[in-house]
């Protein structure tokens, strides 16, 4: 039997993952619900003043979406470990890094993309000035896949642990710091009328390119270490 090509293996992996998500579509809503709740808590805690909310809006939106992503990291490889299909991925003739890249792609499309599409609504809830929506959307569009890729490395390292909850957050947050600084920083810089905000976007883009190449390889190494 000849091994399937890269594209065929990738397509099969995506189809399987999407089907799994579709069978449990209620779970896919969790990150959105979480982000809505976090975002709703801020006006309730701070009072509904327009200017104050508008000032903290970029940071709050970024943090809410980052935390929503963090919540879903644990499920990235969990069910595969439980039912043994992860071992099959390790044994598969297709490169593990490629399969992981497909997995992260599906994970991002299911958890982060809905949040990204709802960001204009969230922004309205916090009275974010309209001119800042473009920088925010750009930074999130580049930042959330970066967070997913970095998260995949950490999730791969912790697959051997049954209840990884808070440990996963401790491991992931230091690695998320630069993304958050550049992502939220770009929006704040745009707010102050600095033209250099686009520089942060370029840096995020550069980081994303690097992570697209390196993170699946690192995650594959981590998985092999964790399951050896």
């Amino acid at each position, binding site marked *: 039997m000849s091994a399937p090509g890269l594209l065929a293996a990738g397509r099969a992996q995506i189809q399987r993952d999407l089907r799994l998500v579709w069978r449990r579509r209620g779970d896919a809503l969790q990150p959105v619900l979480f982000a809505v709740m976090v975002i709703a808590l801020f006006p309730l805690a701070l009072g509904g003043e327009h200017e104050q909310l508008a000032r903290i809006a970029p940071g709050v939106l970024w943090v809410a979406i980052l935390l929503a992503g963090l919540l879903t990291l644990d499920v990235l490889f969990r069910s595969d470990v439980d039912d043994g299909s992860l071992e099959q991925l390790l044994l598969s003739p297709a490169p593990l890094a490629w399969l992981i890249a497909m997995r992260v792609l599906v994970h991002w499309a299911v958890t982060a993309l809905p949040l990204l599409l709802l960001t204009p609504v969230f922004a309205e809830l916090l009275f974010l000035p309209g001119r800042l929506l473009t920088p925010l959307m750009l930074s999130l569009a580049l930042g959330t896949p970066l967070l997913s890729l970095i998260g995949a*490395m950490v999730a791969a*390292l*912790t697959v*051997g*642990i049954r209840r*990884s909850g808070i*440990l996963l957050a*401790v*491991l992931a*947050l*230091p*690695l998320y*710091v*630069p993304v958050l*600084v*550049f992502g939220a*920083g770009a929006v*704040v*810089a745009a707010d*102050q009328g*600095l033209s*250099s905000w686009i520089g*942060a976007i370029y840096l995020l883009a550069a980081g994303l390119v690097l992570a697209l190449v390196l993170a699946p390889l*690192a995650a594959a*190494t*981590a998985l092999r*270490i*964790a399951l*050896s």
Partner: protein
Amino acid sequence: MNRFLLWFHQTGSPANFDRYAARWAPWAFATAFVALAVGIYGALFSVPPDVNQGENFRILYIHVPSAWMSLFIFIAMAIQAVIALVWRIKICEILAMSCAPIGAAFTVITLATGSIWGKPTWGTWWSWDARLTSELVMLFLYIGVIGLNSAIEDRRAAARAACFLAIIGLVNVPIVHYAVDWWNTLHQGETIRLLGPSKMDSSMMWPLIATVIGTKAWFVGSLLQRARATNLEHEANKDWARSAYGATQ
């Protein structure tokens, strides 16, 4: 086999490492004790008060060596981690994992003394500048390495996973530093420089050199001691350990 490689392999075997560590750890601690005693004496009594900061600056002699050590140990840990993952040398896994708690302790000392120093000189306990933030992130990374190492049941798998995290973390620290640096120059304008451009007078310098040597030696002693303990724990059922430490059965 050349002599260096031979030495490397011989020291790397658990039984030899145990003897090696037992022989050198007391010497390292003795060096550390003498150097730190001399350095602290110099810092507290012999060095004159600073023109600008008065007596406050004397905390520098603890703060600066600890800050160097927190970074130095992280690099040492990552190097051990690379060796452990590439050549699968067991003793390097143990050494890398023994680095983490020592490094975390030095990082906590750095953050604490920095805060105490910051209050009278900057008027604040904390500032989100690049150095402080990267030091804090480094503490989280140390805690992550320790946490991951203790969370996985199989010890070798745990050490290897934590080693990998240490390598990822080493890449992360400079990125955080430059990210916050960029962010701050964009927003704050004024940056607080710890040591400033002023050069230290040589009369103020020698206690610092003594404490730097002292903390390095302390790290070596502590590392050997910790690694030896972990090594013995792993090897408790081996013949060499049982005969060397007089197990009866």
